[in-house]
């Protein structure tokens, strides 16, 4: 049942406009590939490891191959045709051998034609299908473990971040957090990883304000949480970040290592990391197709808009972004139950009725996306270092989450913006959540905002503003809206930004068996 009485016509209009705004961008995404999509494709085909002999430090084999192919014959036909053609031509046993031969300068890549092209595409298809079978097996294994250990006993699920920089320490902290009640563990990435155009290799122990996302780190954390799941009697989910310049590759690694949720926003990289818009939309589409296949819940990053813009004035930009994220996700094959659309409790506590405004915004998201596992994110902008005030604000945030039926609750830290959380900060934060859930988990049942009251009116107003903005975006074009600073006040033109040189227009003969398999062709 709905509490806000949203007009279904207005809601349908909002979705229709979001689809129209997204349409040209989807066409652009389909017409291009990127170095990261091609690398992700080869990772699905089984390439692993890094060239440790390179003078610039470890370079992943997949980068060596894709960069060399690009030098020799371009990537507008995709990497699969030249790579698998070379594999056959040189009679090599594996892609890793091909990579080694590439590094040794023994391979001259070219684009095969005719029957040679079909043959290369076929072998590529077989290799990639094998990789996808691993992804499928992991999905089945997750389902099995969820059945065996069970889901968390109640909503919202409790999401907690660890970020030590050292995967071994992360494991200790994550295990303690899970024992203390966390249902989902997110390992925050090292600052700056989003702008690396390669995925580091191996277990890592020296991150900045976070731990590098690597295949091995994923494996270590998932294995540790499998043990803890057994111990605590519920399946502990593991989260990481499919964002930045390596979004598609990280999505593949997550699928190969049975991660459960991935941060994956359609516009975050553009706005907050100044990554080229086209690069982002192409990478995002592929990564979402992979997530859909892997049964991974994506988490979108609407909270970020509210940290740069005012959370009241910009409330409708969150709704617009959620609607766009929803459309892009559906287009990439993600069903509602895998859509962890984000929103956040970021209104200045000094604003009168700030809590009622928060409830209005949270309820609006809940009722617009009834089947999506919404991710509710805690205050960060107005955490001042006054840890006592912060603890209370987090309590209100928790209450708003319970009251409006949020699905995933990211645990707020009273020491936000002061220090990396202490062991005790996490413990106190979880106590805060537990208290609110124990004290008020059924309160939603009694919560009936007055039909023409403040909360209902505010929600209608925000939806109305969202529709107006979407209308403007449809008229101006989404890329122009992004260039004009519509979201989060950042201006990002489509031809600028990091990673722009990694975008390639597809030729007519472009082949990518991964894309075909993911799209069910």
């Amino acid at each position: 049942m709905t509490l806000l009485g949203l007009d279904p016509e207005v809601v349908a209009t909002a979705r229709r406009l979001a689809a129209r705004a997204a349409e040209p961008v989807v066409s652009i995404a389909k017409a291009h590939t990127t170095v990261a999509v091609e690398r992700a494709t080869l990772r699905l085909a089984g390439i692993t490891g890094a060239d440790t002999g390179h003078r610039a430090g470890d370079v992943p084999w997949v980068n060596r191959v894709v960069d060399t192919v690009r030098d020799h014959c371009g990537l507008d036909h995709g990497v699969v045709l030249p790579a698998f053609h070379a594999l056959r031509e040189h009679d090599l046993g594996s892609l890793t051998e091909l990579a080694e031969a590439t590094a040794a300068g023994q391979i001259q890549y070219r684009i095969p034609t005719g029957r040679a092209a079909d043959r290369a595409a076929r072998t590529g298809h077989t290799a990639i299908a094998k990789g996808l079978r691993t992804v499928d097996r992991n999905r089945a294994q997750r389902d099995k473990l969820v059945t065996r250990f069970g889901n968390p006993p109640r909503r919202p699920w409790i999401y907690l971040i660890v970020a030590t920089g050292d995967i071994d320490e992360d494991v200790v902290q994550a295990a303690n957090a899970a024992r203390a009640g966390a249902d989902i563990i997110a390992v925050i990435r090292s600052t700056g990883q989003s702008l690396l155009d390669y995925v580091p290799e191996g277990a890592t122990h020296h991150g900045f304000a976070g731990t590098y996302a690597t295949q091995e780190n994923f494996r270590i954390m998932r294995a540790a949480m499998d043990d803890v799941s057994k111990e605590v009697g519920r399946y502990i989910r593991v989260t990481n970040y499919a964002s930045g310049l390596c979004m598609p590759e990280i999505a593949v690694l997550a699928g190969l290592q049975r991660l459960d949720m991935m941060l994956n926003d359609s516009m975050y990289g553009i706005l907050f990391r100044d990554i080229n818009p086209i690069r982002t939309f192409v990478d995002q589409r592929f990564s979402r197709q992979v997530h859909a296949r892997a049964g991974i819940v994506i988490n979108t990053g609407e909270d970020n808009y509210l940290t740069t813009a005012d959370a009241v004035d910009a409330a409708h930009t969150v709704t617009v972004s959620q609607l766009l994220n929803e459309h892009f996700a559906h287009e990439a094959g993600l069903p509602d139950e895998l859509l962890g659309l984000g929103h956040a409790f970021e209104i200045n506590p000094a604003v009168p009725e700030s809590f009622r405004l928060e409830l209005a915004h949270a309820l609006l998201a809940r009722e617009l996306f009834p089947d999506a596992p919404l991710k509710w994110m805690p205050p960060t902008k107005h955490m001042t270092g006054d840890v006592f005030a912060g603890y209370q604000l987090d309590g209100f945030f928790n209450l708003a989450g319970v009251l409006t039926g949020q699905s995933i609750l990211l645990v707020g830290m009273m020491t936000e913006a002061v220090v990396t959380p202490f062991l005790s900060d996490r413990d106190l934060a979880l106590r805060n959540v537990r208290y609110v859930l124990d004290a008020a988990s059924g309160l939603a049942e009694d919560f009936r905002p007055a039909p023409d009251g403040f909360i209902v009116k505010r929600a209608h107003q925000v939806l109305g503003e969202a529709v107006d903005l979407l209308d403007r975006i449809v008229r101006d074009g989404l890329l122009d809206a992004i260039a004009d600073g519509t979201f989060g006040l950042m201006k990002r033109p489509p031809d600028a930004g990091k990673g722009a040189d990694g975008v390639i227009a597809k030729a007519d003969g472009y082949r990518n068996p991964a894309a075909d398999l993911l799209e069910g062709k």
Partner: protein
Amino acid sequence: MKRHVRPYGDTTGDGMVQVSFTLPVPPGPKAEGAALQLAAKMGLDPAMVVHSHGIGGDFTFFVVYGSATHIVDLDAVEVVEREYPLLSPAEVNGVLRKLLRRKLVVVGGCIGTDAHTVGIDAILNIKGFAGEKGLEYYRELRVVNLGAQVTVPELVKRARAEKADAVLVSQVVTQRDAHILNTQEMSAAFREAMGDRRPVLVAGGPRFDPLMAGELGVDRVFGRGTTPGEVASYLVHALRTAQPEGAT
């Protein structure tokens, strides 16, 4: 104000403070005793453990109240007092118009791998901070916000291209002293590239201490809670003091 002071609980001179901490000791009488010993070594006498609870099996969290035996000598306290008057946006604009007869150019960004633009945006974006509008709001300032993860060479290049009068960098991430090293690298690069003709260099971030300006090689450091108005007023001050005498 008296020269010698102690913390104030509810009576002058009671010295009462409250601290919380965690010890890697399982909860129990031994843990409480350990907490009291630590409190005593911290100068709390008498001290009371008013609360403790175990975290997992191996740690105990404490809240301790006690009377601090230490005395603060206010005469021995060194801080950077604001060395310039606080001006309103209108006053800043007025002075700049008279002084420069053109807009003052401010280039800002987060350097290194730091992606936290909250601080620089609070100062630069028109939105501002703490009820004050950001520098973009000032008519006589031209603001170029380069955003996050700007490399030092890029910053120098842009500062030169924009003919920057002032460069503002923000540093939030402090792991392994990244904020200090990045800022030193930045100031050295400007000195190297432009010598005396370098712009006014300002560093800001929650973990900076205004006393660090010399160590960082910058002209001014702003810490937690700095508002755009303070920065704008400082820029006017820096400009005034840089002008040859009698020019104003």
